[in-house]
């Protein structure tokens, strides 16, 4: 099929560009890594309040993995703003290539980079802090990370097409990502939250993803959390992916 072929062309082109200049990917990895190293150890002494008696690292590490997924993909649109400005997008739009492919190739690249970053992060957690995640749970986590990446990268690209400016992107992203982060329980589990805050966090799809990922890291597969989290994440990716492709088709770049 044409679209798959074209998606691959865009994917490889962007991935190669990323490998030539990996600074951005490394910078995006730094933030969760710093949290892991400089914040994680504090949790060891919190005891039962934080992790219900289980290994706090098994709770914290999947949170950091999702933090990468959130920030890595939500800022993907900045690259597109640059591409819009330089005329690259217009140049690709004048080809018969599928509009969806132009978006999906980019999203697939972001997904790949995210998964690679997540692997690095988990590897460091295993090596440095003795985290022992369930192997299958880890693989499933990477799949959910990829889906979160699809969702936020698509939304971010749609935003880039709408705003066409770094400033517009930055203000919108800051006002969205921080509440999303705080209301997801990525840093501290929402079980610590008062009732109203926990209720609020349930609106945030990411909070369900976090629950699912934590459960799978700890080998608890047959829980409602895993089912809900997976379905919510999947739906989230489909909806925002659709928004992204619609925007890409409609906007006359």
């Amino acid at each position, binding site marked *: 099929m044409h679209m798959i072929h074209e998606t691959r062309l865009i994917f490889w082109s962007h991935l190669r560009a990323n490998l030539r200049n990996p600074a951005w990917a490394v910078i995006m990895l730094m933030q969760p890594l710093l949290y892991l190293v400089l914040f994680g150890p504090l949790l060891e002494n919190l005891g039962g309040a934080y992790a219900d008696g289980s290994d706090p690292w098994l709770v914290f590490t999947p949170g950091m993995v999702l933090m990468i997924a959130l920030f890595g993909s939500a800022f993907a649109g900045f690259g597109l703003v640059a591409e819009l400005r330089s005329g690259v997008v217009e*140049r690709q739009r*004048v080809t*018969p290539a599928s509009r969806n492919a132009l978006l999906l190739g980019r999203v697939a690249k972001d997904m790949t980079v995210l998964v690679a970053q997540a692997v690095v992060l988990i590897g460091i957690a295993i090596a440095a802090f003795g985290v022992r995640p369930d192997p299958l749970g880890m693989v499933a986590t990477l799949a959910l990370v990829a889906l979160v990446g699809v969702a936020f990268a698509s939304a971010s690209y749609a935003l880039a097409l709408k705003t066409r400016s770094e400033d517009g992107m930055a203000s919108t992203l800051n006002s969205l990502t921080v509440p999303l982060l705080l209301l997801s329980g990525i840093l501290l589990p929402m079980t610590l939250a008062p009732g109203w805050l926990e209720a609020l966090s349930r609106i945030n799809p990411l909070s369900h993803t976090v629950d699912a990922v934590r459960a799978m890291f700890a080998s608890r597969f047959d829980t409602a959390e895993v089912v809900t989290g997976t379905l919510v994440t999947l739906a989230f990716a489909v909806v925002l992916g659709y928004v992204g492709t619609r925007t890409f088709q409609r906007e*006359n770049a």
Partner: protein
Amino acid sequence: MNQPAPVITARRLARTFQTRTGRVEAVRGIDVDVQTGEIIGLLGPNGAGKTTTVRMLTTLLAPTAGDATIAGHDLRHDPRGVRSRIGYVAQGGSTSDESLVLEEIILQARLFGIGKARAKANATALLPSLDLDGLEHRPCRQLSGGQRRRVDIALGLVHQPHIIFLDEPTSGLDPQSRANLWEHIRKLRTDGVTVVLSTHYLDEADALCDRLLVMDHGTIVADGTPDELKRRISGDIVTVEIDTTAMAGSGDTASSRSDRAASSPESARSTPGTDATVRAARQAVDVRSVLVERNRVHVTVEHGDQAVVPILRALDGAGIAPSALTVKRPSLDDVFLSLTGRSLRDSDENRDRGRAGGMTSEPETGTPAVSHP
């Protein structure tokens, strides 16, 4: 004569932009017909609507009204069909800083559905002809402005389209590269490629285009070959230079005359003999206007080449021996000025120096430096 069906047809094509300060009618319902193998120039000052027109014809911008067909594909209903037939070089460039020259050109070809091997062959064949050999593996940020512009052009040509839209392709190119690109475009025409090129360089339009569409304020104000346009507007200018020493004492002090009273100064005092020259020229040919500048008489006629011999004979009959006689086409700038009331050269900065046949406008705008004794 039955002409082949035009490869580009646009009818009442229009585009209005909504801005904070109001509506901008960038293109106001233009009709365009382009035949296969033509090089069409869109000529117009800044903001005339050239880019908007090209962007509509390349499916990048939805028209607010009107229709167009490109290579048999309807712009509105089959944009993908249109895209598969065209190449486009944008005015503002199309490369990102980090992309590598050859890789990017190959990617562009492949997005047009060309296989890997052929894409690579096309790209490598194109690079030397655009003087880009040796730069294949450089990121675009390490190129000079002109080199980067040539990469844009390569990106627009690599899939060997039959219809090419070039939006100010030579902006930022040095004269050598510009001449090379013209050569390249002419070669494309011999292969039957249709080229639509926007420019505000008159020499480029003159040298390269089979036909010009002069745009201003979103409309097409003139349509014709460069020669037709020039002839239609101003005719040719025959300049007779009189040897003043030879004529000394024989004449009166005549003032210059012009049939276009409004457009040329009447006050000039002239060399003895010019009056007789003007009279002789009027007898010999159909003169549109006359301008006298010291010992030179500029006569505007329909066909300069056909006027030379009759004028010479008449001068001979009147006992006037011209020291020089030249025929010049008016420049496209004259054409432009008379069509739009503006000179293109104002926006040309220093690009327009030394163009061929570069006579500045005489009867239309000329204010020759006529000094009083």
